[in-house]
C-alpha cells in the first residue's frame, strides 16, 4: 500500500474505501517494525491504535465526508514525543527516571488531537528531558536519520522527525525550547512548526524551560500543520500563558527580511547557498526582500544557556523519586550538567552576574526582533549552521553541541513563531531547508508563505 502523505489524501482514501482505517494502521505498524533500527519509538501503542481504528471504521460505515467536519483528523495516525503525557500509555521523557511512569491524564494537546479523530501509534524517542540537538542524549539509545542511518536526525524531537520522514505516522507532535522542532524537522526533510509562545497549552507536557517551551508539530505538508495547530491551540483554563490571539495572514505580499547575522562565516556554505536559493524563489514570485540586522544574535547562546538551565534546574527539582519515577541518581550526565549549570547561575553571589544579566540581554534580543518587524513582515534564514552531522561527532564537547542552537534559540527567547521548510539536500543527500520567523501570533502568514513555496517547488 502507498501510504497517504497528507490529511486530505488519508481521508479521501478512507471515504473512497481504498483502505480501511485498520488496514492503514496495519501498514504504519508494519513500517514501524521494518524500521526498528531507526529507534524512532520508545513505546508503540499498537493495541490502542487498532481499537481506535476499529471505532473509526464503524463511524465511517454509511458515512460521507461531512464526518470530517466533526472529526478533522479522523483516520490520521499521530506519534507523540515522549514528553507528552498520554493517559494509560507509558511516558518517559526519554529518561530512565520515568522508565515505568504511566500517566493518569493526557496533555491538552494530546486530548484535543484525539477528540479530532487522530489515532496515536506510539511515543517517540527524544533527548532525555528534551536536553539536546541530536537525539543522542536519549537514555533509550539515539534515533537514526532516515536519510542516512550514520547521521543524527537532530533533536530533541528526534523520533518525531524521523517517524514522519520514514512514514511511520502521518504527523507527529514535538516541543521547541531552543530549536527542538525546527532543527530535527530540517535535518529529516519534513515541515515543522514552533508556534508563538502562548499559542498552544503546555499542560501535560513535561516541562523543560517554562518561559521557552513551545508545543508544536511536524508533517509532510504545510496545510496539515495549520490544521493540527488550529486544533491544539487556544485557551484551556490550565495554562495561564495561553491566549486566543491569532493574526490573520497578511492580505498583501509580506515583505521578507534576511538577517545578516544568520548568514555569517560560521554557517556551512551549502546551508547558506541553499537558503539564498530559497530567497531567489520568493524574489521570482514577486516578494520584496530586504537585508536586516539582529545585532544581539551573537549573545543568544549565552542568554539561552543561562536562562534555560536555570529553568531546567527548577523544573527537574520535582523528580525526587518519592511521588513518581526513580531517584535523582538515575539522571544521566547531560541532565546533571544542565541542572548544575542552572543551579550555579541562580546561586547566591552569581544570580546578578548571570541570570539577571541574561534576562536583560534577552530584552535586547526581543527589541532586535521588534525593530526589524517594523520594516519587514517575515524573516527567512537557515535553521542550523550545518546539515545533519554524524552520530558521535559532537558527543564529547557539550559546548560545541550548544553552539548549534545559534539560529533557532533567538526565536524562543523572543517567543515568536518559526516554521521550518524542507528544500533540497546536500551533495551527500542529507536534507536541507530554511525557516520563516515572524512576530508573535503571525503563524498564518508563515503558513501562507510556505504554501506559496510548496506550490512552486514540489
Amino acid at each position, binding site marked *: 500500500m502507498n501510504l497517504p502523505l497528507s490529511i486530505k489524501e488519508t481521508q479521501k482514501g478512507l471515504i473512497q474505501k481504498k483502505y480501511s482505517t485498520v488496514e492503514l494502521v496495519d501498514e504504519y505498524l508494519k513500517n514501524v517494525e521494518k524500521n526498528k533500527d531507526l529507534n524512532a519509538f520508545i513505546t508503540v501503542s499498537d493495541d490502542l491504535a487498532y481499537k481506535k481504528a476499529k471505532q473509526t471504521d464503524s463511524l465511517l460505515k454509511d458515512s460521507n465526508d461531512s464526518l470530517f467536519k466533526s472529526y478533522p483528523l479522523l483516520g490520521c495516525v499521530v506519534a507523540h514525543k515522549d514528553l507528552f503525557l498520554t493517559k494509560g500509555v507509558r511516558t518517559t521523557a526519554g529518561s530512565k527516571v520515568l522508565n515505568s511512569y504511566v500517566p493518569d491524564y493526557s496533555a491538552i494537546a494530546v486530548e484535543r488531537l484525539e477528540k479530532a479523530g487522530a489515532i496515536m501509534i506510539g511515543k517517540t524517542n527524544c533527548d532525555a528531558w528534551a536536553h539536546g540537538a541530536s537525539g543522542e542524549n536519549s537514555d533509550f539509545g539515539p534515533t537514526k536519520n532516515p536519510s542516512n542511518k550514520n547521521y543524527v536526525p537532530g533533536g530533541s524531537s528526534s523520533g518525531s522527525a524521523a517517524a514522519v520522514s520514514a512514514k511511520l505516522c502521518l504527523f507527529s507532535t514535538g516541543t521547541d525550547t531552543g530549536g527542538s522542532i525546527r532543527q530535527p524537522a530540517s535535518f529529516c526533510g519534513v515541515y515543522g512548526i514552533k508556534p508563538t*509562545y*502562548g499559542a498552544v497549552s503546555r499542560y501535560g507536557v513535561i516541562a523543560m524551560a517554562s*518561559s521557552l517551551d513551545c508545543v508544536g508539530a511536524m508533517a509532510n505538508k504545510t496545510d496539515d500543520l495549520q490544521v493540527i495547530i488550529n486544533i491544539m491551540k487556544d485557551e484551556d*483554563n490550565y495554562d*495561564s*500563558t495561553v*491566549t486566543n490571539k491569532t493574526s490573520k495572514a497578511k492580505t498583501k505580499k509580506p515583505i521578507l527580511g534576511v538577517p545578516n547575522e544568520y548568514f555569517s562565516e560560521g554557517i556551512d556554505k551549502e546551508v547558506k547557498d541553499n537558503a539564498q536559493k530559497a530567497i531567489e524563489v520568493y524574489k521570482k514570485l514577486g516578494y520584496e526582500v530586504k537585508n536586516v540586522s539582529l545585532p*544581539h544574535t*551573537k*549573545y543568544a*547562546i*549565552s*542568554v539561552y*544557556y*543561562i536562562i534555560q538551565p536555570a529553568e531546567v*534546574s527548577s523544573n527537574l*527539582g520535582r523528580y*525526587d523519586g518519592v511521588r513518581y519515577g526513580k531517584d*535523582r*541518581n538515575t*539522571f544521566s*550526565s547531560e541532565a*546533571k*550538567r544542565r*541542572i*548544575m*549549570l542552572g*543551579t*550555579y547561575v541562580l*546561586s547566591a553571589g552569581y544570580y546578578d*552576574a*548571570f541570570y*539577571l*544579566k*541574561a*534576562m*536583560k*540581554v*534577552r*530584552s*535586547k534580543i*526581543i527589541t532586535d526582533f521588534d525593530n526589524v518587524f517594523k520594516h519587514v513582515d517575515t524573516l527567512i534564514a537557515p535553521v542550523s549552521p550545518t546539515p545533519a552531522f554524524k552520530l558521535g561527532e559532537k558527543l564529547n564537547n*557539550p*559546548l560545541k553541541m*550548544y553552539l548549534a542552537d545559534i539560529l533557532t534559540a533567538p526565536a524562543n*527567547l*523572543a*517567543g515568536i513563531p518559526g516554521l521550518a521548510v524542507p528544500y533540497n539536500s546536500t551533495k551527500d543527500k542529507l536534507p536541507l531547508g530554511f525557516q520563516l520567523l515572524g512576530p*508573535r501570533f503571525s503563524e498564518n502568514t508563515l503558513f501562507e508563505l510556505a504554501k506559496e513555496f510548496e506550490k512552486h517547488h514540489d
Partner: protein
Amino acid sequence: MAKLNIKDVEHVAKLAKLSISSKEVSLYQTQLSSVIDYVKNLSEVDTSNTTPTSQTTGLTDVCRNDEVICANEIKKEGYFEIDKLIDK
C-alpha cells in the same frame, strides 16, 4: 567570573541534590567551566538601562473564575464561615 573549581561543582551538586562520583567531578568541572567561560561574553552588552524579561506574553495576574463547592455555604460579608478548626 572565575572558572569553577572542584569545590564549586561539589557545592552546586549538593544544592541540586545530585550525587557526583569523584571520577565525574573533574569532568563536570571542565565542561561546566567551558560553558561559564563562554557566557562571560554577556558582560560586553550595556544593560544599564534595560529591564529584564522573564516571559514574553506580557500577561500578568491571569485568573480563572473559581467554582466553589461547599457543603455548608454560609457567606458573611463576602467570606465563607466555617467551623473552628484549631483550638488553643
